[in-house]
């Protein structure tokens, strides 16, 4: 099984994680930290709900902010967040403006901050707010923005992105004071000039929120966000979606040239829309003080003890007893074929894209004007025509210098494509479709909608379906493996029909954000428990487990009917399992007792058949001669071969 495992093991594969990590972390270091201020209107109107069971706008804002906090802890804990209330009775800010209360300055999100936010939740939260801070009678929005600007300028780190999200349900804050209103407008303009984005997260107001009264002039939508939301949010989910979409800034993975030929070149940006989220790497702490320690790695010469510079080393590989040595630069250079970018090869019909020829997760391509003017127009023309002719562009893609080329398909993607398709054929929504997927309140305390119960989420699909090209990686011949397939035995129509009935019973609507990673969730819950000194960590609900009870109930007698049609009476589909288990148990007790004589080893080395030995045997041999090998078979082989060649 050793071979299988080494091919197959994908989780916890350290090397891979690192590689991915580099890719993901790479762009971070370039661009500094994102910073985001939640600016929450705390005047009395925000605490009034229209319905008994409806969340107050203030409560909704707080829950939404909390959710962003906990998400940031998981996804990007270097980002800076702050919470500012305005329209308060008390004030707390560096410039002593009235009616402005800075609850949290810009800093990384942490446990204490989340706990502090929790105090403002629900009815108790309302009371807590009134006791601690209280509602004020007046405020000046320009002062509020001033305070926010100060928060940004007090930060020592390099910031890549500054954003303020304004949560309010007052559409005309300075209706009676035109001077104040005009000052607010000026201030907002100033913020824009200094690269601070201001977003309005307007909440439900009796009689509707009219952006034209005041905010339209204050919040001049960034060019890129035209038409994304003019609807006020009356539900927490809506607000969350709105906030989430804004809260992460697009990070361009790279900006590259797309060459149609030598003369015609446009530039595109590459974006990552899916990226495996990993548990953050552990930090080393000093036992006495729990402070983080710095790690330094030194390379030195064993004989002289002197530190080695990179130029004092070379790279080597050994094949059949022969050592081949290259300079480090040469090992990089031999991977170089093209300059980074895309080279257009041609076009193929979309239907030739094979779903099962998946190699690695796709990326998103969008035009980039910053390097070549006019790129968008050509891009747009290509996109329009590719969609119309149902073709994809095949390109040779070199992501970085010194990376070998790969072939990719640029698949045109139309805006709201999915949305329409779904609407054309709405899924049968029977009952509370909770095939194991109904999410109860998950740990951030948010009641998340069970998939399938959502009214067609125009907003969300809208976000996930943007016009541009999807970059699909195409496998090389080497990436495909020959699979020894099982003989085809066809089921008869009756059997197929029975299975169809089963499938229909277990329908649900898939949404890409339906499942949380139970491993990550458990990890962060453990962290939370330790941070808060809880006795027991809260157990994460594992959404990846099938809800067998619900399923069984839905299926009823169908399963038995199907089995009767398909399985012979004495057939046991669970067979052999017990045997395997035994194997597994005895596996641990099996210790290699292979001892090889020196002659045998030498014979293997000279014949080049050392590779026939098992890893435990090789390890044993290494131990016998006091050799230090790695864990990989190849490393062990190298060490042994080298040893005997010297001898």
């Amino acid at each position, binding site marked *: 099984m050793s071979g299988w495992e080494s*091919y197959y093991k*994908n*989780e916890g594969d350290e090397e891979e994680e690192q590689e991915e990590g580099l890719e993901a972390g790479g762009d971070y270091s370039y661009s500094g930290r994102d910073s985001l201020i939640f600016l929450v209107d705390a005047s009395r109107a925000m605490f009034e709900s229209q319905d008994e069971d409806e969340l107050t706008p203030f409560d909704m804002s707080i829950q939404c902010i909390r959710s962003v906090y906990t998400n940031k802890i998981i996804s990007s*804990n270097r980002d800076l967040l702050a919470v500012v209330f305005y329209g308060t009775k008390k004030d707390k800010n560096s410039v*002593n403006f009235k009616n402005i209360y800075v609850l949290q300055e810009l800093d990384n999100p*942490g446990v204490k901050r989340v706990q502090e936010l929790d105090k403002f939740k629900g009815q108790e939260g309302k009371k807590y707010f009134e006791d601690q801070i209280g509602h004020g009678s007046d405020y000046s929005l320009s002062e509020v923005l001033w305070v926010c600007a100060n928060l940004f300028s007090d930060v020592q780190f390099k910031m890549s992105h500054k954003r303020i999200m304004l949560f309010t349900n007052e559409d005309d804050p300075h209706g009676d004071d035109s001077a104040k209103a005009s000052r607010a407008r000026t*201030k907002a*303009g100033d913020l824009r000039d200094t690269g601070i984005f201001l977003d309005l997260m307007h909440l439900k107001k009796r009689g509707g929120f009219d952006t034209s009264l005041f905010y339209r002039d204050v919040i001049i939508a960034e060019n*890129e966000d035209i038409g994304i939301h003019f609807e006020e949010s009356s539900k927490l989910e809506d607000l969350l979606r709105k906030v989430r*979409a804004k809260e992460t800034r*697009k990070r361009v993975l790279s900006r590259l040239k797309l060459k149609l030929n030598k003369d015609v070149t446009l530039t595109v940006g590459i974006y990552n829309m*899916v990226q495996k989220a990993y548990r953050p790497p552990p930090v080393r702490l000093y036992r006495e003080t729990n402070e983080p*320690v*710095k*790690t330094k*790695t030194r390379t030195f010469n*064993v004989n002289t003890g002197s530190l080695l510079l990179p130029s004092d*080393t*070379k790279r080597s*590989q050994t*094949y*059949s007893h022969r050592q081949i*040595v290259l300079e480090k630069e040469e090992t990089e250079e031999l991977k170089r074929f093209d300059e980074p970018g895309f080279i257009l090869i*041609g076009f*193929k019909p979309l239907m*030739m894209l094979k779903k099962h*020829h998946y*190699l690695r*997760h*796709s990326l998103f391509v969008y035009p980039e004007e910053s390097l070549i003017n*006019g790129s968008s127009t050509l891009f747009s023309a290509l*996109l*329009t025509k590719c969609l119309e*002719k149902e073709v994809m562009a*095949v390109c040779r893609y070199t992501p970085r*210098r010194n990376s*070998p080329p790969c072939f990719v398909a640029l698949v045109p993607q139309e805006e709201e494509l*999915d949305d329409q*398709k779904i609407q054309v054929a709405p*899924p049968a929504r029977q009952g509370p479709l909770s095939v194991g997927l109904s999410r109860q309140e998950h740990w951030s305390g948010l009641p998340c909608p069970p998939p399938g119960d959502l009214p067609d989420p125009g907003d969300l699909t809208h976000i*996930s379906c943007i016009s541009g090209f*999807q970059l699909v990686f*195409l496998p*090389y011949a*080497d990436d495909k*493996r020959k*699979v020894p397939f099982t003989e085809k*035995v066809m089921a008869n129509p009756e*059997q197929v029909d029975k299975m169809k009935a089963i*499938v229909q019973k*277990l329908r*649900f609507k898939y949404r890409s954000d339906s499942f949380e*990673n139970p491993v*990550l969730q458990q990890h962060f819950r453990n*962290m939370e428990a330790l941070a808060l000194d809880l006795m027991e960590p809260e157990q994460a609900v594992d959404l990846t487990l099938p809800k067998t009870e619900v*399923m069984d109930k839905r299926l009823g007698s169908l399963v038995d009917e199907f089995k009767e049609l*398909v*399985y012979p009476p004495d057939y046991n589909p669970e067979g*052999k399992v017990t045997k395997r288990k035994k194997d597994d148990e005895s596996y641990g007790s099996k210790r290699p007792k292979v001892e090889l004589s020196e002659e045998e080893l030498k014979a293997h080395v000279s014949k080049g058949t050392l590779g026939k030995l098992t890893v435990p045997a090789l390890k044993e041999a290494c131990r016998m001669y006091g050799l230090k090998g790695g864990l990989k078979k190849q490393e062990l082989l*190298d060490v042994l071969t080298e040893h005997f060649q010297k001898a």
Partner: protein
Amino acid sequence: MARSWDKAAVVLCMDVGLAMSNSFPGEESPFELAKKVMTMFVQRQVFAENKDEVALVLFGTDGTKNALAAGDQYQNITVHRHLMRPDFDLLEDIESKIQPGSQQADLLDALIVCMDLIQEETLGKKFEKRHIEVFTDLSSPFSRDQLDIIIHNLKKSGISLQFFLPFPIGKQGGTGDRGDGSLLSDHHGPSFPPKGITEQQKEGIQMVKKVMMSLEGEDGLEEIYSFSEALRQLCVFKKTERRSMPWSCQLTIGSNLSIKIVAYKSITQEKVKKCWTVVDARTLKKEAIQKETVYCLNDDDETEVSKEDTIQGFRYGSDIIPFSKVDEEQMKYKSEGKCFSVLGFCRSSQVHMKYFMGNQVLKVFAAKDDEAAAVALSSLIHALDELDMVAVVRYVYNEKTNPQVGVAFPLIKDAYECLVYIQLPFMEDLRQYMFPSLKNNRKCTPTEAQLSAVDALIDSMSLVQKDEEEGTIEDLFPTSKIPNPQFQRLFQCLLHRALHPQEPLPPIQQHILSMLDPPTEVTAKCQVPLSKIKTLFPLTEVIKKKNQVTGQDIFQDNHEEGPTCKKLKTEEEEAHFSVSSLAEGSVTCVGSVNPAENFRVLVRQKKATFEEASHQLINHIEQFLDTNETLYFMKSMDCIKAFREEAIQFSEEQRFNNFLKALREKVEVKQLNHFWEIVVHDGVTLITKDEAPGSSVTTEEAKKFLAPKENANADSAAAFEEGGDVDDLLELI
């Protein structure tokens, strides 16, 4: 566990006879080409470090050396190397030791020698495959008498054959219907009939066809390659493919329905297997190098602490939480062992390809030799296919790995049917970015003319050929048939360095480069549409302002590295001036947030005249003072100081002095004594002629300018004397 199933015995049987060295002018001889193909093959074997064994038999040699040679039998056939693991010696031999012979030898005799060699030398060893690769131009005469016996014996002993010829042979039934092998058809090379073919060669072709047909039927012809085909498609060699190990499990639907399945990895990114070892540059030994990791405290002395004194912790936002490995192991999520359970079914359109994740594709079949399971899985496959639905499943490889959620969709082929499993993202893995719509953006809407130019381009660059009659589509550029050039390049460099340690690395082989380029007919056809696009779409490179170069650009383009780095450095050296403000590059006027900074940027980048910028600045200062609040006083002070410094820089001292004088007047009128105290305290006075030659103010006068006037407010003076510190003043207010 010895894996005998992927071990093969291969005999390379090469014609080195007289005619092999003949070539048309400007072309490589069959002899050289054959050597190239063999090198490529052996090189792959050496670097793949598999357990195959390779022998080399030459025919047409001047001498004779083989086990069957007796009398005039089996002459001019040399067993150059017996069956053993291929190594660099063999590669060296192929490169330099093999010389063209001056004789001719019977190809069929050579085949018999090869068969004999395989028989003899594989005795008692386990080989899954036995194989003979023949490289010849078929120009030597042969005797047919033993042909049938040879074919019979090949069949009996399970030896397969492949032929490599200098020319492509006509393959019946055309080249289009090769199913998935259409790259084999020679789009680049000469087409049948090959030029200058002799009668003897024609006879040879007939014989080779007959042999292959009788061995493998129609498919046998697929195993006859031209050298150029072989070079272009390095994976034609049979035995280099890797096979997947089976993973058996049960597919479960609910608690009561399970189907025995077995899954194989069908696609995964093949990586270079061996990694580079770091060795000492002089001794070339890796033992000479040691890496040491030390931990030190984050204090001034960087006090080292031993590894034992450190513990593991994790970041939780801004907090760092100590968390030992033991605790982690105990508290972490545990999956309950291998699993392939259906969570539910949904429409296939809901699981878009863009969500596919992970690094592998699994093909899921019913367990081997289990007809009941096969029927059960087949029902599922066809049910999903007919309903256009997919299964969403939880997949766990084993108890040590993390669970995944993925999609399983049906794949139905002529020969087999299966489910294909691909991982899907978790909520945490998604990034929801928004982009402006391209559709409704007037700025980038293409004109009709532009659109039709692109239309023409797409037509001219089509990579498929439609056969109207048969209704088939031929792929002219099947990327999944192209071997990863990275490996070939690595092997080429390694081999070159092994054989010629002192020489620099060779350039990339031409046939590898051409393999990556579009078919020539496509490049030819698209010239006209492309030049039309060039004229219709204005594309202008943005002249980059140096200060907007991001780190990424620097790393991407080494040519620019030098100058930009320097540029950044000089910027850092300048005081009071942050690089970030420059980088933002969007300052067009003096705003109220950072007026001093904006002012500096404007005047230094010459985006506004000094007069204009200072006007804006003065306006802000006045606004600030009108608030009569200390914070604004401080801000005003910053502005005034910036104004003063820049004025000296740009020889605009007169402008500043006038301003300051006017300011003093205003302060008196508006009773802003507090503010003036700050000015006095900070010693901001007129620019003297010591500071700037254009000024007429003496140091004395400057001092006097700040001195309190006779009628100065006594209170404020008292306050000043008492405290003498700005902070005190602030507190007083």
